């Protein structure tokens, strides 16, 4: 298996089930995922869509493989603007490893980004923001400070 483009990970003081809910429940993603609401049945082959509050699509994709509470491998296709959309879908697995102390290690990797493109740069910052925000939200219940223009 070839190496991914990027690997992002973080320890979260919460159970794998709690982290899974934060990833898959739309009411929860609204708190840390750029305000978007995720919708999917989270079964293999199922469609995933991230919706802005006005109902338009921020991004979509497909569930490639899933083990609820442990991992989901998805494709993720940016739809937030034409240039990002032209970059095509990215493969993005989310893995949750239970830790001895009852917490979780969340690892998100990306594959299929073309280095130097705007979508690759936006992704680099975007995934970091989302993963950090997920941790802060799950551990403290508080959403991240959202950049002013998103508010």
């Amino acid at each position, binding site marked *: 298996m070839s190496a991914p483009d990027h690997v992002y*990970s973080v*320890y979260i003081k919460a159970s794998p089930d709690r982290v899974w809910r934060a990833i898959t429940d739309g009411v929860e993603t609204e708190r840390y995922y750029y305000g978007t609401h995720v919708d999917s049945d989270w079964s293999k082959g199922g469609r995933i869509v991230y919706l*802005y509050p006005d109902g338009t699509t921020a991004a979509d994709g497909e569930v490639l493989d899933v083990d609820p509470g442990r991992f989901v491998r998805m494709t993720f296709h940016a739809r937030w603007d034409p240039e990002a959309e032209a970059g095509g879908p990215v493969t993005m697995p989310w893995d949750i490893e239970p830790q001895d102390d009852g917490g979780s290690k969340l690892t998100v990797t990306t594959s299929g980004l073309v*280095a130097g493109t705007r979508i690759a740069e*936006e992704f680099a910052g975007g995934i*970091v923001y989302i993963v950090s925000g997920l941790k802060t939200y799950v551990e403290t219940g508080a959403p*991240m400070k959202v950049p002013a*223009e998103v508010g």
Partner: protein
Amino acid sequence: MTDDPMAPAFRALSDPSRRILLDRLFERDGQTLGELCAYLPAMTRFGVMRHLGVLEEAGLVTTRRDGREKRHFLNPVPIRLVHDRWIGKFAEPVVGAMAAMKRPWRLRR
């Protein structure tokens, strides 16, 4: 020993050689030890490995096997958390202004 979750990241960032390694991984992610050694020519391979070890311990670098190679990936999440939980409050007005200029992952309105 305090139970400060940010301490390892601050310690890892305190060394200029380690910051060079992070900068080079920021420019191009997933590099091998051999590639990273080239950026610190005055340092032995063992020295570079030791610094990468500190970065990995602090969670700032993640490694993945790729065939016979081990690749190093920048994990900026702990730095982001340090920023959000500690540095951000001191620099907030400036950061806010810059974020608005850069507009990462902006919303369509």
